[in-house]
């Protein structure tokens, strides 16, 4: 029995570790792919070299982030089977097809056009290249669509039947399954989060270079674009998050109870606990700083509305309160800090000092990685808040694991930890190295060492080391002469 528990905990840690590490990269590449599409679109529209330079600057970073996202993502697609085989067997008929759709409509699209996006500008011409960039950006969004549908179904399962063999089977309508109750909220909240994450990375890099040289036009442009995103999107995100919270209250009340730290029911208006230390043993929040009735106001839009607490939930169905309580506050705190930066930037812009205020730039620099922290904290909130279930109210996490012994999982977990920190640590280091270099006019694209990008045989040698240089576009289109 004890052995089982150990294996289960290890499997959970392994999944949490690999999925958290993985999600850092898509959180960045979903936003960055769109940013690249915007930059290339602006370049095509205005013809300004500045946009092309920025495009190439961020393309190099995108290439690394995307590669890390791909290799860590393949791990995820197999881990359902390796570590959660009972879950895979039982839920496969419902969520398997959604994941198959993700592969068919998103992964192939991204991967198929990525090569052209990275290396093909002087082979296919500007417009087709832009189309490839758009396809990659679209692919990242479609991927988010399907995987969030899967996750949302696990949070708010509907539209299923239970088969004679114990499997969950799809019901009449796939529409109900795909567009399950929490999906639209989670999709909006997560995709905006990816955009904000990227905006703060771009803004942070811009700020870093402005601090060194406030005349750098490239740094100015990226900082300005990022701050517009922060100013406009951070408030939208807070609103979307609030909507998502209300949806959670409706469908997964104990998750909200844990987020709020409400161990007890409040029949006439629940307080909003700003800070405190949840004490699950004693079922109370120690040292709580509260705003009376504010939680009822936020969640029910009524100061005196009653709110049930965890005392209404059987102990064996409660999520771990401490983790959810804290991760939720970290996410929300960062959200409001982002809002603050956005407002500050608007004020600076209004005073025509956007590029002049080092304090703003320093703050933006500090906030550069904040999106990643917020995104991971948000996922911890929603995933831990669903416990002890893996499929809410249907399948317990403890009943979903593979029949593996603890030492096997311990060994694989150790291998993942070592490899991920080494490999992705190196990748992040390379990205930081690229970000450290100031963006400049005549920026190089994704360069391939001494060899240059691969070329079609038989064409006249041209300056293809710097794809997209106006002099070399559009490229040669002579037929290959290698005898095919």
């Amino acid at each position, binding site marked *: 029995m004890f052995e089982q528990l150990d294996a289960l905990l290890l499997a959970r840690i392994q999944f949490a570790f690999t999925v958290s590490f993985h999600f850092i990269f898509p959180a960045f590449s979903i936003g960055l792919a769109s940013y690249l599409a915007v930059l290339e679109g602006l370049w095509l529209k205005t013809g300004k070299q500045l946009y092309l330079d920025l495009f190439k600057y961020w393309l190099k970073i995108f290439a690394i982030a995307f590669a890390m996202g791909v290799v860590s993502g393949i791990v995820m697609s197999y881990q359902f089977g390796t570590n959660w085989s009972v879950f895979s067997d039982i839920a*496969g008929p419902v969520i*398997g097809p959604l994941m198959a759709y993700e592969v068919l409509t998103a992964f*192939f699209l991204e991967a198929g056009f990525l*090569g052209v996006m990275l*290396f093909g500008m002087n082979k296919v011409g500007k417009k087709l290249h832009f189309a490839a960039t758009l396809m990659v950006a679209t692919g990242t969004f479609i991927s988010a669509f399907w995987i969030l549908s899967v996750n949302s179904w696990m949070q708010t399962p509907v539209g299923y039947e239970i088969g004679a063999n114990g499997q969950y089977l*799809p019901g009449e309508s796939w529409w109900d399954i795909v567009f399950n109750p929490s999906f639209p909220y989670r999709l909006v909240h997560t995709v905006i989060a990816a955009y904000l994450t990227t905006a703060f990375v771009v803004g942070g890099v811009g700020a870093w270079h402005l601090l060194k040289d406030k005349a750098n036009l490239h740094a100015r442009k990226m900082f300005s674009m990022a701050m517009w995103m922060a100013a406009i999107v951070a408030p939208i995100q807070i609103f979307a998050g609030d909507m998502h919270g209300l949806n959670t209250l409706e469908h997964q009340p104990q998750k909200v109870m844990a987020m709020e730290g409400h161990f007890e029911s409040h029949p006439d208006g629940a307080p909003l606990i700003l800070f405190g230390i949840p004490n699950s043993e004693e079922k109370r929040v120690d040292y709580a700083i509260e705003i009376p009735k504010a939680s009822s106001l936020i969640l029910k839009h009524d100061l005196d509305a009653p709110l049930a607490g965890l005392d209404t939930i059987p102990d064996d169905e409660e999520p771990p309160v401490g983790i959810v309580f804290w991760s939720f506050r970290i996410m929300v705190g960062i959200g409001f800090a982002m809002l603050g930066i956005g407002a500050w930037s608007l004020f600076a812009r209004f005073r025509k000092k956007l590029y002049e205020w080092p304090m703003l730039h320093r703050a933006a620099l500090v906030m550069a990685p904040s999106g990643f922290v917020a995104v991971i904290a948000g996922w911890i909130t929603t995933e831990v808040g669903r416990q002890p279930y893996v499929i809410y109210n249907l399948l317990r996490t403890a009943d979903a694991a593979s029949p593996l012994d603890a030492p096997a999982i311990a060994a694989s977990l150790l291998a993942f930890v070592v490899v991920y920190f080494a490999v992705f640590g190196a990748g992040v280091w390379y990205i930081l190295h690229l970000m450290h270099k100031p963006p400049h006019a005549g920026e190089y694209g994704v360069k391939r*060492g001494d060899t240059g990008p691969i070329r079609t045989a038989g064409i006249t040698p041209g300056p293809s080391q710097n794809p997209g240089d106006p002099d070399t576009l559009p490229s040669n289109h002579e037929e290959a002469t290698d005898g095919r």
Partner: protein
Amino acid sequence: MDVNVDLTVIWAFIIAFAVFAYVVMDGFDLGIGILFPTFDVGSERDRAMNSIAPVWDGNETWLVLGGGGLFAAFPLAYAVILPATYPLIIAMLLGLVFRGVAFEYRWRDPGHRRYWDAAFTGGSLVAAMAQGMTLGALLQGIEVVDRSYAGSWFDWLTPYTLLTGLGTVAGYALLGATWLVWKLDGVSQHHARKLGKRAAWATLVLMGGVSLYNVFLNAEYAERWLTAPEIYFAAPVPILTAVVAVMLLRALSVDRHSKPFWLSLALFFFGMAGLGVTMWPYVVPPGLTIWDAAAPERSQIFMLVGVAITMPLIIGYTAWAYWVFRGKVADEGYH
């Protein structure tokens, strides 16, 4: 036979197609990784890498379709095979991590390029070996009780699985070498052709070894290959394989372009067909048939619509991406 049966067969072929597409497409990527240490540092390695840099990611996606498709269409098989081969799958995934990032990292960090080149080779080798051994573990049979893997820790490690693992490594090396014959020229092409010949012999010997072993492995397999009337259906596979093998060895001596690659592909195709003859109708021998493991009809139909719409598009734009990067990989240093 009701509708469900036919859909299940269709899905078995779709998964087989995805696996085949993965094996041959990522096969040459992994093969180049396996052969990488034998290439000269500098231009030869750079060109070998650049010949696959724009396409490896798309190639690897077929592995996700193979795995994801298995999960969706045969969830029980997915839930049994992966725990049964747990260490192999984890090793493959970690190998693919090293292999995948090496594509980017080696250009970012010339000072440590040889380490990332080593990671590229190590990752490719581990992934190839693990894939081959997983196939072997599947063919030799997986013990299933109550919809769950019931074997022990090291069932996947036998002389047979080592043989299938080595066969896969050799086969991938053959694909990689013949791809490079196509994409390179000059001295490097000569080098690739030499490697291709060795890899071809190794592949043929190991393929033959695995085939013979199969006959002794399982009475049912033997019956399928050696008794009438099955033998009339099965016999063309080894005969055609032998024909392709002879053509391949000849082509490796004379052809300067794509012919050895296409013949290697044909070799894999007949290997896959042989596999189909051996396993059919089991998805997890000896106990689970494709019908035992199949997803319900509603799941199959829903996905089939998706496949019918997207697969032609996927094949279309994948072919386009290959077309964009067609031709020999030139060495810019010479111009």
